[in-house]
């Protein structure tokens, strides 16, 4: 899988590239729109990560050209502009996804993976990690042979954490997926729910599964398993 990042801030480009290379993608970097255009014309890419404010040729213009020459190339927009109007405009211009700075790298990886998935993967009905089991059909949660009763939000939170065990989910990501952005910055709602979830999932068991990574967020892992590879 070969990715192209067109981003004029060298540090940010380098940081994103390093992380994606760790995910075993081949990554090229272009520092401006013109260079990006040349790369796209010269090589075959599976995904384009595009900043909007670029020298010479703007991101919006590059997106328009790419849509004409490569109609099926997935494009992820990475920008500091976060108004609804901007998003709508670029989705209409052919962008496949849109991520606003400052983003969580984990979020970027999730989205890149989703965009690169050519065919939709089968959604597993049962999420299983260690002795914790979540059944999406019956909405039943068990640990070992013990059944755990969860409220709606607690269930949604656990389902999200279990969707990628060992990956650290930031509070912003959790808020966006389980709640909505209204709660961002104002409340500690995520921490409250995680605490309640822990009380039900971990308190009565010797092995703790829900872990806090200070300053980053939460993840589901047991003590043996390492942290998700995309963060290494």
């Amino acid at each position, binding site marked *: 899988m070969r990715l192209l990042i067109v981003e004029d801030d060298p540090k940010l480009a380098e940081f994103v590239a390093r992380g994606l290379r760790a995910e075993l993608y081949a990554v090229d970097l272009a520092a401006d729109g013109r260079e990006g255009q040349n790369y796209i014309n010269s090589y075959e890419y599976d995904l384009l990560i595009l900043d909007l404010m670029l020298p010479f040729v703007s991101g919006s213009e590059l997106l328009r050209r790419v849509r004409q020459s490569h109609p099926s190339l997935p494009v992820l927009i990475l920008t500091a502009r976060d108004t609804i109007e901007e998003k709508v405009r670029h989705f209409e211009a052919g962008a496949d996804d849109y991520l606003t700075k400052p983003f969580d790298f984990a979020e970027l990886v999730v989205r890149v993976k989703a965009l690169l998935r050519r065919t939709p993967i089968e959604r597993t009905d049962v999420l299983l990690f260690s002795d914790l089991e979540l059944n999406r059909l019956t909405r039943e949660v068990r640990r070992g042979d013990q059944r755990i009763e969860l409220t709606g939000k607690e269930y949604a939170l656990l389902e999200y954490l279990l969707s990628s065990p060992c990956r650290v989910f930031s509070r912003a990501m959790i808020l966006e997926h389980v709640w909505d952005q*209204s709660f961002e910055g104002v409340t500690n709602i995520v921490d409250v729910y995680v605490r*309640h979830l822990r009380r039900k999932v971990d308190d009565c068991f010797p092995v703790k599964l829900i872990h806090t990574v200070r300053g980053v967020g939460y993840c589901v892992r047991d003590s043996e398993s390492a942290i998700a590879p995309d963060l290494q």
Partner: protein
Amino acid sequence: MNHRSLAFRLAVWYAVLMSLTFALVGAGIFYGLTQYVRSSLGDSLRRRSVQVEQILAQSPSDVTDAAIAESINTRVAPEFNNRFVRVTRAPASLVYRSGAPTDRSFEPLGVPPFGGVWPLKSVTRSTVTAQGLRLILSTTPLVTASGQYLIELGTSLEPIETLQQRLLALLGLLLPALVTCASGGGYLLVNWALRPVDRMSQTAAHMSLRNLEARLPVSPTGDALERLSLALNQLLARLRDSLQTSRRFLADASHELRTPLTIIKGELQEIVGKQILHGEVRDRLGSVLEEVARLENLVAGLLVLSRLDAGEVQGDWADLDLAELTLSTAEQMRLMAEDRGIQIDTQALIPIVIRGDRARLKQVIVNLLANAIRFTPRGGMVTLRSSQSSLYSVLEVCDTGIGIPAAALPHVFDRFFRVDEARSREDGGAGLGLSIAKSICSAHGAQLQVDSEVGKGSCFCLMFPRLPKAVIQRAAQALRSEHANDGDTDLTGGESVLVALRPRSLF
């Protein structure tokens, strides 16, 4: 009538000045006229006196008193002319005294005899008769062959006194009438002259920081008023420019902060995630990351504010039940409250339908609720209430928390304002929550007010004006034609109308 108003004070000044002027002029007229009438009367008396002098001077030295009386009666006829004539020969013998005048204006016998030293030349004096009547007397000394005489010629002062009284009465009537006219006219005149200023202040009062495009009316009169309105308009233009600059700066700055923030956060998260660090270093990096998260919230908050400042109201405006939105938000936050031992009471929420942006309004409710929960001690209560009057749809968020000191109340909606620095820092609040809530409310044409008592709790009150449908429709039509002229045709619904209506009609 306002006793301190400019018009009233000017009217009083007019009245005082007019009274003084009129009193001076009146006194002048009174004095001048009296003097003139007296002196002309004196002149006429002296002319008669000359006739008597001639009679005496032409008489032989042995003339009898009767002959003199005869001549005076014939030639001067004092009784018919209502004059008093008395001729005395030195040292003190009465030669002639006229009889009662035909108009009986005085009694000749009552006129007191001349006392004191005889004058050397003709003088005019007044005297009072035994009956109390005032007379004017011209007294002339004369020396002839037949002896030394004193001729006194007089008449009643009554006509002059009558004239004086009438003049006084006239002036007394005219003065109040004139003063009333002057002060009343002055009052009206000043009010009329100040009307352009009134119009300017009305326009200025309807301006808000969001609506700095409006200008004061300029009346092309070339005077101080025109200069004042021009100067104020220039001031407004400068204010708008500097406000725009600072807003753009805020937007640009928060924008520019985002890329470095992404890098800092990403790099740190990567290091922390590697688990190669242990103990203190890991903990410290975690703490740095927490600060980064706060910085992120701050930047996001500032961007939201700068957008609201710029008048961008995004998203979809629709009719929505604010109570239902409040209830669902409260349900989402109930656990947060219960976690701190706080009850949320939603019993008094009745449906209130308003028009607005659901996501943004939810932000307001979250901010207010989070605030209420944060500042309410364990065991407290947060009450949500909605109500409707003919003018407003109202949502109240009340708590039994620590309250806000009266001195801090006017500032709670200020950016970065914290009542208690230490406590808020601990909670990680950026001090923007209420400011954002207020801005969103303003963008909806709603008011956000606060009432609080230390130790008892605070109550935040959200008031949405209820616009009659007719007003909205009329504004929509006006706006459509306005935009049609601009060649702008993408205006479709009432929501844009309400946005456009907001600055002018709701504040």
